[in-house]
């Protein structure tokens, strides 16, 4: 890794009441990289993502984007900086149409960029077919496509993807990971949180393993795939 990090977390500490969720997490994402965060349930993966987009306030530590401290920036301004977050559980606006959801994704833009919308529809043709349909009536996989598409509408530099495979038919998981590869191919930097470690590591350049609020392991995807610890804990192979 070069010294030029797009996103850098420094000793991030976050707690829910008295319960510490992150106990000093530091990580870096360079421009153009795809980085994944692995870990068991409750390891702090989603907390990390929600802290970067400032839905959560860290108790200590810093978040740097382009070298600038954004720890105190309110959530709605983080999007303006170029960080877009597709949250865990998709969180699409169920009683709005697919197209309205995408328009809201472009809320920070002066007007909805037609080319952007075109690109999102090309990535996920299913969304165009259903653009007048209420988002709540889509299948889980389609909602995930919508959540990702919506987060692309603000032309982010950095895309935070939280559990894009959660609760989705296996056949769709593969297709969604292919789309994420395409998105990264367009120059969007991706920070990905995943339970599906194998798929995530196949896609990512590097990875971090979170364990109860601390970084337990980090390395290139190849190293992590080969690591005994990772194999045992997340890839279901008994050593």
């Amino acid at each position, binding site marked *: 890794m070069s010294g030029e990090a797009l996103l850098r977390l420094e000793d991030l500490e976050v707690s829910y009441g008295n319960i510490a969720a992150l106990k000093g997490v530091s990580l870096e994402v360079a421009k153009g990289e795809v980085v994944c965060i692995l870990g068991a349930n409750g390891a702090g993966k989603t907390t990390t993502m929600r802290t970067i987009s400032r839905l959560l306030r860290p108790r200590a530590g810093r978040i740097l984007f382009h070298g600038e401290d954004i720890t105190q920036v309110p959530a709605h301004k983080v999007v303006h900086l170029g960080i877009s977050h597709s949250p865990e559980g998709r969180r699409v606006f169920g009683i709005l149409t697919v197209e309205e959801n995408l328009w809201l994704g472009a*809320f920070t833009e002066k007007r909805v960029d037609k080319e952007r919308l075109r690109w999102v529809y090309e990535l996920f043709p299913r969304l165009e077919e259903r653009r007048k349909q209420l988002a709540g009536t889509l299948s889980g996989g389609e909602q995930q496509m919508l959540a990702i598409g919506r987060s692309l509408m603000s032309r982010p530099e950095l895309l935070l993807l939280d559990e894009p495979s959660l609760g989705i038919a296996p056949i769709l998981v593969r297709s969604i990971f292919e789309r994420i590869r395409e998105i990264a191919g367009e120059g969007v930097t991706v920070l990905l949180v995943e339970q599906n470690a194998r798929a995530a590591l196949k896609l990512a350049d590097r990875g971090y393993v979170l364990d109860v609020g601390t970084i337990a392991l980090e390395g290139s995807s190849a190293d992590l795939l080969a690591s005994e610890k990772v194999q045992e804990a997340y890839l279901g192979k008994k050593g």
Partner: protein
Amino acid sequence: MDTFFQQLANGLTIGSIYALVALGYTMVYGVLKLINFAHGALVAASAFIGLTIYATIMGESSSLLAVIAIFALVAAATACLGILLERFAYRPLRQAPRLSAVVSALGASLILQNGIMLVWGPQMRIFPQLVPQVYWNIGGVVISLLQVIILLLSVLLMAALYFFIEKTRMGAAIRASAIDQDAARLMGINVNRVITLIFVIGSSLGAIGGLFIGLYYRGITFEMGWQYGLYAFIAAIIGGIGNIPGAMLGGLLLGLFTAFISGYISSTWADAFTFLLLILILIVRPTGLLGERVAQKV
């Protein structure tokens, strides 16, 4: 048949007032999931503010321009009260348990109501006649110019609100904030600003409603916000609280219902039948007539 059409006209008039006030309840509930109990007192305050503005600024003139100015000034003043209400009574309790906010709402309502009494006194005041007393007798049914104005202006305001909510970006931001505040923040929506805007819109519409109450019923009292607020609140529930077209529909239905009960049975029974209607609707459709029907995703 005369009674029918007469009560139809009366019901639509009262109903549009209920609808205007109900919108304030339903919009705040939609985004904050909070019953804004102080809304009724705010509506009462608007009538008294109208009284003062009329007396001090407008004097004896009641030209069309002066009337429009009174409406605009009262709406602006009430919107400011609404902003203060949100800022000091509700925002500090945003993260607190729901009950604390409800208690704060009731407290704010009492403060407002007693504030009105301190400023304008406990006696009933007579609201000025801003609209010329023109009546039409259409085959035995008497309709006043005031009724026509109330109905038309209400419909116009509601149509404008509907367009704003459904067709503009800010409207979409309001709907998004009502569904999921965190997700709205992730879109870059400043949810605090949306909430302020909702109080501005709800309070201004309530203010117009308050002025209509003064113009239509003439006598205004400091505690009248309780009565009209309750009716408008019931209208919001009948329509499906949190649902904007629902508040409009609920208001009109409730106005018609009370008018027909008064016309055919007795006005003393109007309250009893109104609550009976509320109970029946809640039994049949707990989410109100237009309450959310699309199941939220898991």
